[in-house]
C-alpha cells in the first residue's frame, strides 16, 4: 500500500480495491443518520408498519406540528429551555477545553511532585461507572447551595476524565526540545502554553469539544437530579418528557421528530469541528 507514494504510475490501479472496501463501509456508517431523518417524517401508519421500513414513503410534517402544538400548550415557553441548554452547553464546552488543556500541560510537561498520583486517580475516575456517584454528587450540589442554578448544570460536567486523558496523551507527544527552546528565549509558562501547546494539540481539543458537547447536550441527569424548578431545566429533558408523557401512539411520532431536532446541533457542530480537526492534523508541526 505504501508504494503508492513513490510509484505514481500504479496509483490509479490501486485505488479501485480501496474504493471497493471504503464505499460499502461508508454506506454502513451513514445508515443511522439516514434513519433518523427518515423516521422523523414518517406518518403514524408507517412508524408502526410491520415489517418496519427503513425509508419513508409518504413524508409528512405531522410529527413536527404535533410537537409544536404540545410545546405551546405547556406553561413555560420553549425558548426558556433552549436558552438554558445553550448556556449550559457553551460554558461546559469552553471551560472543559481550557481546563483540561491547562491541566494536561501541567501534568505532562511541568515538574510537579504529585503528577503520577493525580494521573492514576484520573484514570480510576475514568473507569468508574458515572451513575454510581449520583447520590454523593447530589449531596455535594445540595450542600453548595447550587440546586436550581446554572452551576448545577455546568460544574459537574466540566472536569471530564476521558477528555483529560486524551489531551494529556497528545501533550506528551509535543517535543520537550521545543519547550526548552521557547524557555531559553524567555517565554513564560503561559506563553509556552498558549503559543506552543495549544496550537499543537488542536486535534485533541476538537475531539474533546465534540465529546464534551455530547455529554452536556444529551444530558438529562442534571435536570432530573439537581433542579426541581421547571424553568431551570434543559431542552433535552423537556423533549424527553414530551415524548414519554403523552399517549404512546402520538408520542412515538413526536419522539422521532424531537430526536431529529436534538440531533441536528450535534451534526452541525461535528461538521464544523471535523474540518478543523482535519486541517490541523494535516498541518500540525508534530513530527
Amino acid at each position, binding site marked *: *500500500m*505504501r*508504494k503508492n*507514494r*513513490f510509484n505514481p504510475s500504479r496509483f490509479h490501479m490501486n485505488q479501485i480495491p*480501496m*474504493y471497493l472496501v*471504503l464505499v460499502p*463501509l*461508508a454506506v454502513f*456508517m*451513514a*445508515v*443511522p*443518520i439516514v434513519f*433518523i431523518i427518515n423516521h422523523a417524517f414518517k406518518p403514524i401508519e408507517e412508524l408502526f408498519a410491520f415489517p418496519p421500513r427503513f425509508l419513508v414513503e409518504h413524508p409528512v410534517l405531522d410529527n413536527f406540528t404535533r410537537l409544536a402544538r404540545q410545546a405551546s400548550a405547556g406553561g413555560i415557553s420553549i425558548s426558556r429551555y433552549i436558552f438554558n441548554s445553550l448556556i449550559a452547553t457553551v460554558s461546559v464546552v469552553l471551560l472543559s477545553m481550557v481546563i483540561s488543556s*491547562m*491541566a494536561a500541560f*501541567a*501534568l505532562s510537561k*511541568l*515538574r*510537579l511532585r504529585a503528577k503520577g498520583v*493525580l494521573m492514576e*486517580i484520573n*484514570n*480510576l475516575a475514568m473507569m*468508574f*461507572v*458515572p*451513575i*454510581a*456517584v449520583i*447520590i*454523593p454528587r447530589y*449531596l*455535594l450540589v445540595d450542600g453548595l447551595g447550587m440546586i436550581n442554578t446554572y452551576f448545577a448544570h455546568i460544574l459537574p460536567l*466540566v*472536569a471530564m*476524565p476521558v477528555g*483529560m*486523558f486524551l489531551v494529556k*496523551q497528545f501533550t*506528551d*507527544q509535543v517535543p*520537550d526540545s521545543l519547550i*526548552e527552546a521557547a*524557555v531559553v528565549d524567555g517565554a513564560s*509558562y503561559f506563553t509556552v502554553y498558549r503559543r506552543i501547546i495549544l496550537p499543537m494539540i488542536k*486535534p485533541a481539543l476538537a475531539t474533546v469539544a465534540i465529546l464534551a458537547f*455530547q455529554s452536556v447536550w*444529551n444530558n438529562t441527569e442534571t435536570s432530573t437530579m439537581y433542579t426541581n424548578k421547571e424553568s431551570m431545566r434543559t431542552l433535552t429533558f423537556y423533549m*424527553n418528557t414530551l415524548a414519554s408523557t403523552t399517549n404512546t401512539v402520538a408520542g412515538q411520532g413526536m419522539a422521532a421528530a424531537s430526536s431529529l431536532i436534538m*440531533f441536528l446541533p450535534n451534526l452541525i457542530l*461535528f*461538521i464544523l469541528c*471535523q474540518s478543523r480537526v482535519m486541517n490541523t*492534523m*494535516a498541518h500540525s508541526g508534530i*513530527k
Partner: protein
Amino acid sequence: MKKPRIGLVNRREMKGYLFLLPWLVGFVCFFAVPLVQSVWYSMHDVKVTANGLKLSWAGWENYRYIFQSDTVFIEQLSGFFADAILRLAVILVFSLVIAMMLNQPIRGKGVFRTLFFLPIIVVSGPVLERLVSEGATTVPLIETYGVNGIIEAVLPPMMARPLSGLFSQLILVLWYCGVPILIYMTGLQKIDGTIYEASMIDGANGWISFWKITLPALRPMILINGVYTLVFLATTGLNEVMATINDRMFRTGEQGGGYGIASAMAWVYAICLGIALLALMLLTKERKARQVAIQKSREQVELERLHAQRARGMKRRGGKRHGR
C-alpha cells in the same frame, strides 16, 4: 521522561500548580470526593429517607451478597468482559485498516473521512438507544443465513456466545470506530515519509514496513485507543452491567438492592476494568532495551537475507539492475 530543567524548581512548581488548579478543584469536588464516599457507602446499608440518608454499618456484607446471592451480576460481568475483548480487537484492527486507507492519496478522501467520523455523534446519546430498539444495528443477512447457528454448532458455547453477539451487533461495533480512526490518523500523519523511502531502498516491501515502521510508531496511539474504547464500551448506556447497577440502586432492601449494594457493584466493576486496562498497558508497553537489541539483530538478519535474495535475482537476470 526527560523534563526541561529550568531554574528555581520550587517557584516554578508553584506556577505549575496554578495551571492545574481549576481542573483539580472540579475534579476533586465532582469525582474524587464522590468516589471516596461511594467506598464508604458500599460498606453500609443505605436507606434514602426524606431527611437524608440513613446509614448502618454492614462491613463486607454488600460484597458478599454480590458474589453469593445476586442472580445476574457476576454472570453479566463475565459476559461483558468476554464481549469486550473480542470487540476491542475488532475495533482496534478495523479502525487501523480504515485509518491507513484514509491516509492514502485517493480521490474523495474528505467525504470518506467525514462519513467515518459521523458515528461519533450517533453512538452517544438517546439516538442510539432508539436505533437499537428499532433493530437498525443488526445485519439482516447474518440472521437469515444462519451464521450464528453455524457458529454455535461448531464452537463450544463459551466462545460461541460472544462471537455470535459480535456478529449480530456488527454495525454497532463498527460505529464505535470513529474516535479510534481519528486518533490513528493523527499518529499516521506524524510518521515521516522518508523512513518508508529509506526502508524501501533497503529492500523492505509494504508488509515489512508496516510491521517494522507503522506499528511501532503507532504504539502509543494503540494504547490510547485501547483505553478509550474499553472505557467507552464499559460506560455506554447500552451496557447490561450498567443497567443492572442502575436498577439495583433504586430497589429497596427486601428485593435485594439499595444504594450500598449498587456502590459495591460499581466498585467491583471498576476494579475488574482496572485490571483489564493494566493488562492492556502491559501489552502495549515499550519493550525493554535488551529485547530491542535482539529485535534489531533479527532485523539485521532479515535485511541481509533480503539483500542476498536481491543479489541472486540480479545475477539471474544477467546483471540487469531492476531496483531504484
